[in-house]
Each structure stands twice: as C-alpha cells, then as structure tokens.
C-alpha cells in the first residue's frame, strides 16, 4: 500500500537549533532517503520564527511531524529516533 502512487506530504515543526529538533531533521532525512526515494514533499517550519502559526496549527511540543496527506492525517512528536513507530505512523512500512 505504500507506493509512490500518492505523494506523501509532510510538515516538520522544529524549534531552531534545539538538540531534539536537529536530531529530528536528521532522522527524518534518513527515513526519507531509505524508504521514500523522491515521492514526498517535506516542509520544515521553525516555531521560533513562526510561533503563532504553529500555535494555530495545533503544535504543542517540538519536534512535531505531521502527515498532511494521504489521509488519515497523523501526528508524531519526538526526535523520531524510534524509526519503526515513524514508519508505522506514516503508513510506509510493509
């Protein structure tokens, strides 16, 4: 089911250079590289720069990853070090 038939749209909220945020970016990059090739769109938002937008988006803690499409929308918090849970949540594992 996890084919490139539909583009995966992701949005990652980070808090500037906070260690967990830096780690999340690295972890997500690795996951995408290994599992998604090029069939995805990732937007990274720095909460320190756009705090009110993040608030409106329902972000609480950082790092915060949202899968916008395909549905269902899912939310993952944390530095994404538990790769298995990330893959499950994004629905990209067999």
């Amino acid at each position, binding site marked *: 089911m996890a084919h490139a038939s539909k583009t995966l749209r992701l949005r990652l909220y980070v*808090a500037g250079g*906070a260690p*967990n945020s830096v780690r999340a970016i690295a972890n997500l990059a690795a996951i995408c590289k290994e599992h998604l090739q090029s069939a995805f769109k990732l937007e990274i938002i720095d909460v320190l720069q756009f705090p009110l937008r993040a608030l409106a988006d329902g972000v609480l803690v950082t*790092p915060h990853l949202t899968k916008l499409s395909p549905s269902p929308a899912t939310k993952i918090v*944390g*530095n994404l070090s538990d790769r298995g*849970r990330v893959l499950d949540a994004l629905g990209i594992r067999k």
Partner: protein
Amino acid sequence: MTVVAPQPLPKIATGIAGFDEISYGGLPRQRTTLLKGGPGSGKTVFALQCLVNAVRKRKERGIFVAFEETTGQLLANAGTFNWGLPAMMKKKLFFLDARLSPEVVQSGEFDLSGMLAMLKAKKEELGAGWIVFDGIDVLLTLLRDPAAEMREIYRIRDWLAENGMSAIITAKTEGGLSDAVNYDFMQFMVDCVVRLNRRLEHGVSLHRLQITKYRGSDFMAGEFPLAFDATGMDVAPPEPAEIRHPASTERISAGFERLDKMLGGGLFRGSSTLITGLPGTSKTTLAGKFAEAACRRGERTLFVSFDEGADPIVRNLASVDIQFRRHLKSGLLRMYSARTESTGPEDHLAKVKALIRDHSPRCVVIDPISAIAKAGAVEAARAVASRLIYMLKDRGITVFLTAINQGDDPAAEATDLQVSTIADTWIHLSYLIRSGERNRALTIIKSRGTWHSNQVRELVLSSGGPVLADVYTAGGEVLMGTLRWEKEDEERGKTLQRRAEFDHKRRELQISEADTHARIKGLEHDLERQRAELALYSSDNEARIVSSSEREKELRRIRSADPAKRNGSNGSRK
C-alpha cells in the same frame, strides 16, 4: 504567632479570601509559585481564581496552559463560580489546550522549546503578566526520563525568568503518576510552594491549604481550612489568639418577657446563646421567637436552618403565633436552608459568611448548629462551630444556636461540638414524663455576666405563642402539665376556701361588732337615764333647800319676827 516581616519581595494579592492574609500579601510578583496536591484538591480552582482576579481587579492579562483538561472541561468546572470566565476568554485570558492527544504517536524525546516560543509570542500579543501551567506533571511524565523531566523544568524556569512573568505551576504530587523526586527539585526551584490537600473524614471531604515555602518572606505556618462557594475559594485564616470582642451592656429581648426576666433582663447584645435539647423540645420555637423579636425591633436578621426547609419552618412557627412572613417580605428577615448530608462543615461556614456579608444582620439564628457535624466530621465541625461563633462575636452579632443532644443529659452536648463552653448563655430544654404526659421544661444552665433564674419553668405552647409557666414541686417532685394544672387548681380551691373562711370570720366579727355596738348603745341609754335621774334628783333637792329658806323668811315676815333678834340670836350664838 509569626510577625509580619519587612517585604523584600513585591507581592500580588490573589484576591482569594484568607490567602492574602496568611501569605502576608499574596504571591510573589514575577516569580514562580508551585501548587502541589492530590487530585481534586483545588489546584486548578486556585490558579484560575488568581487569573480571574488579576483580570478583574488589576486589568491584567493571563495565559492558562492546561495539560490535563480540555478548555471545555475547565469552563464547565469554572461555571460553578460567578467569574464570568467565557467573557474573559475573548481578549483577556488565553487558554491553551495542551493535552497531548492519545492519537499522537511518540517517537523519541521531545522538549518544550517550541511551546515556550509560542507562549512567548502569545504573551507579547496579549500583554500577559500571568501564566499558569496546570498539571505540568501530565506532560512531563510522557518523557519517561527523570533527567529529561528535570531539563524541561529548568527550561520553564529560565523562560519564566527571561519573560518576567508571575507564574503558577500546578502538579499532582499525591496519588499522581509521577514520582516525587522531580517535584522535590521543583520545590527548590520555585519561590513559593503551596500545598493543597483533600482528605475524607467520615465521608466528608475536607480541604486544607498550607504554605510550605516562601522565599524571602514570612508566612503563617500551619494548615488552614479551605472552602468553596460561588465566588470561588475561601481560605479560613486563623482566629487571632487574642480575643477582642467588645462587651456590650445593652440588653435585648430573648423573645418573651418571662424568659427575659429569667435572664435578669434579657440577652446581652452580641452574646451567643445555645439551646440544647432532644428533638421536639421546641428549640426552633424559641429561636423563632428570638428572631421575630429582633425583626420587631427593626433589626436585620438571618435564620439559617439545616435539614429543614424555610417554608415548613415559617408554617410551623405561624402555628404558635410567630409570624415570619411580613418580615421576610420586608426583607428584614432572610432565611437560608441547607442540607448537611455529605457537605463539609467548611462549605457551610463559607456560605454563612457570604450571607452575613450580603445581609449584614444584627441577629442570627443557626438551627441546629449540631447538624454540621451530622455528616461525621466532628473535629472539623467543632472548629467550624467555634470559628462561626467568634466570627459573629467579632461583628457584634447576637446569635441563637440550637443543638440536638443525645439523651436528656445536657452534658452530652459538651462531648459533641463543645459549643456550650463558648456560648454565653446556655438554655436547656428537656422532657419530663410523668402521669402519661410529656411536658417541656426549660432551665438556664448558665448565663455569663448576669443574674439568672435557677428555677425550672414549663414551656407551654399554644396558638398564642410559647409561654413559660411556674412549676410546682410536691414531695420533691416537679409537677408539670396536668399535674401542674391540678396543683394550680388545688391552689385555686384552697384560695377560694380561705377566702370563704375569711368572709365568714369577717361577718362573724361584724355581727359581734354590731352586737357590741348595740350593747354600748343600751348602756349609753342607761347612763343617760341615770344621769338624767341624777340631775333630776339634784335639782329637786336644791329647790327644796331654796324653798325652805324662802318659807322661813315668809314665816318670819308673817310672824313679824325681829330679824335682828334672829340676827342677834345668831350673833349671840356666835
């Protein structure tokens, strides 16, 4: 007693009745306060009330970050208070629903730097000076790492210091999920720690508040009772150790003349009177009489009844000619009825306090005060009863309290609420059962600072009102009811007999007096007659003497006797 220390810390009044007193001014400004306590101990209410008061009284703005409850739940809970929270939420208060939804997947460690950045933006947008982190433990536990928890707590502390906000952090410490370790650390980090505690005592929940730490400031040590009413939380500050009630010498009526006489002229203004007795001994009637008399004097009166509605009381009292309706109508009299089941004594006290603030009565009836201990929390009820009485005394309010005691021994009351030791006057009502009758007896057990009757009186209820009647003792037994009536009848009979006897005697005396008079008259008659006779006799004799000398002259003249001769003879005879 602690003494008010010089204040190196600027404080902000919380507006929570009693708390600003025990903290000598409120919470530290631009510092952090930790509220800790078990579930349902009132942490959220305390924090919310601080925010609401800041908005209302100082036109401040605030942020409330809720980690445990949704905004909807919070609003529903706060809806029981008259704070008008929904209106404030538009512009003055910002609520952040900070519960991490269970649908959110967690993968690895997270932190609060993003959230704090958002809150800072919100703070600047709103101009907020206050922030509450409610239930922070709920979020921190998700980190599942004590070191990470500590790091986040530090992060919050630094953030608060940078932003110069006055903050309240609440955390569950007892019965919560978290281990106490980090919260000990949190106590070290904050400037003020307030411990809230709720415990069940015989099925009644009792709330307590204690300040355990206040950096750079003194505070009143000890646990203080906490109550909730429509205005929010109310902390009962300790009674001042020194008792300073002004002692009035003004006497006011206890309701009826006979009782006033027994009390040496009435009750002292501002005094407290306790009426004890078994159910049905007319305690409420006496209290009603007192309240009615107060209204008649034009004094504002509050009648608090427990476990009986105001309506039945008004109806029942009307049957003994105690009329409340017009005083209720005119607003002089205010009645409040409450159930005591499962409601803590503190809440009753808070309610009565609020009523007193609202109605400002000069006379108060609490019927029965013993009901506040009914739910079982005797110790708390005892403290409440004495605080209530002292509070009334401080305000110079005259109070009538009734108490139901177990058994007919008035001393049984002493083991219960111990009001009798505080009350100035103690009237006991009891039953006397004799000859198939149950009659009510009234005794004044004590009345401070005044002469009072030591005699037992019978309390008789009639449609004309309660009346006190003398009782008789016969052969060492107190007579009441029919026996008293018989005795009174007997006394009446005896009086009549005595009167008849007296009348009889008087008549006898009158007769003999008349007789004597008659005899005196008779004797006077005799006397008169004898006098007359005597007079008659004397004049007759004189006449005879006169006539005999006349006759001799005449004789001489006829005989032409020589008077000289006669004179000579007389002279010769000389």
